[in-house]
């Protein structure tokens, strides 16, 4: 008999259970499952997002690194180029300077030579003039001394005449 009670489902208990379970459903849905599941979902999303952004940061980091390396390489090449250019410029400047210097030197030498020539010519003409004057003076003196003696004068004239006849 009591075993049959065990298998029976008395209506009173069914009503109480229904009431209790509906209350549980309503309260837990609103006050427990919604906040719990929402928060878990939010946390999952947050973790996913964090992992994704970490992955992105990693990629960006490696990108930055390769960019840096590229920049470094570029800078190195640029430096080489600049150094080379500088060297070339230096050399060309030196060559130019040398050329200019040698030309200038030549010009200076030339002008000096010309000057010298000019001075030399001038000096020569001067000397010539002086020598002429000196010669005239000497000749005058000689003549004077010669002409003071009559014999001698006659001898000279004779001589000149002889010469003239000859010529």
């Amino acid at each position, binding site marked *: *008999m*009591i*075993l049959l*009670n*065990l*298998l*029976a*489902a*008395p*209506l*009173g*208990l*069914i*009503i*109480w*259970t*229904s009431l*209790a*379970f509906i*209350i*549980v*459903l309503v*309260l*837990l*849905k609103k*006050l*427990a*499952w*919604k*906040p*719990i*599941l*929402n*928060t*878990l979902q*939010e*946390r999952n999303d*947050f973790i996913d997002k964090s992992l994704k952004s970490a992955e992105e940061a990693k990629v960006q980091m490696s990108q930055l690194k390769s960019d840096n390396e590229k920049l470094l390489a570029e800078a190195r090449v640029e430096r080489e180029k600049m150094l080379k250019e500088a060297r070339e410029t230096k050399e060309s400047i030196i060559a130019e300077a040398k050329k200019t210097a040698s030309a200038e030197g030549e010009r200076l030498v030339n002008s000096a030579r010309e000057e010298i020539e000019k001075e030399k010519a001038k000096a020569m003409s001067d000397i010539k003039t002086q020598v002429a004057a000196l010669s005239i003076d000497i000749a005058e003196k000689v003549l004077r001394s010669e002409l003071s003696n009559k014999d001698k004068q006659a001898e000279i004239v004779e001589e000149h005449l002889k010469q003239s006849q000859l010529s």
Partner: protein
Amino acid sequence: MFQTTENKEVTKVFGLRKILLFGLFFCFAAAFAVAEHEESHEEHAEKEEFDAGKMIMHHIADAHEIHFFTLNEGKENEWHATIPLPIILIGDGGVKLMSSSHFYHGEEIHLDEGHAYAYGDYVMIDEVIYNKDASGDHGIARDSEGSITNSKPLDMSITKTVVGLFLSVFILLWIFISVGKAYKKRGHTQAPKGLQALIEPLVEFAHEQIIIPSVGSKEKAAKFTPFLLSVFFFIWIANLLGLMSFLGGYNVMGSMSVTLVLAFFVFVITNINGNKHYWKHIFAPEGVPFAIKLILVPIEALQILIKPLVLMVRLTANITAGHIIILAFTALIFIFGQSSAVAGYGVGVGSLVFMVFMFFIELLVAFLQAYVFTLLSALYFGSAVEDGHH
């Protein structure tokens, strides 16, 4: 991040140890509570044979009082440690409210079926309350086969099972509303703490390991999740409460009424959400010859009812069977104790070991039945909302 998982791990381990300790404690407490009660039976045994079946049924069946133990049974100063419960009867005379102690301390009638009590206009036979029928003996009318023909009022009493039900609901609401509050307060940026940390893996397990894979997809499962989670934890908590026999031995999930309500909810939700393919699968299966359809369709149609009924019976039977086994080991002690005290103590040691063992099995079953009920409900819901491609 690492800090969080470590904390969780620590709480998990701590939780497990706590549960094991609690389990062991409850186990011994249960054994002592039952033993204490039955010890008095042993003294009584000289006059009355120890009836194991009766004792077991008394512990499992619903009652209108919570009975803890009895002192000096069969003697003059016999004393029952009980809590009388309110009896609420709805009948022709309106609503009647009284204490069950009026029955238990009232006029006792000795019947073949078992204990019967009479009070006022009512008789209570084996915890079932009938209206008194003036035509019969002691107000009990019988037909020619001896069955009771008394009419019954609607018994809305707060019985032992209703108390267990309310206790389970109270614990359930208390745990999950406070955890829900913790989630609202701490948000998704803070690690779970305390009770929240204990509950979170359980909720995640139920949600991600039972509900979503069984229903099919996360989107489809969303609609059923609140019901399934509620059912899962309701069954589990009620089962655990039922194992704490020193609290009065509430056999909530072992009562057909309770599981009937849960199964009815499953039945209604499944069929309300049944889509075109669900109904087509039942009433117009594709690629089946007409002759086989004649057999198949009635079977499939019956399954709509059979599935929830099986859920109901499985849960009740498992929980009741578990209680019966533990009680049977207890009964064993007294059966042997009747022949000789030495045999009683000898068997008692073995029985106690087995009871401890069974208690742990029951702890597992408490979880397993909640798991199975939720899993199968989720599968039924899943079949109702499945997209048709077989």
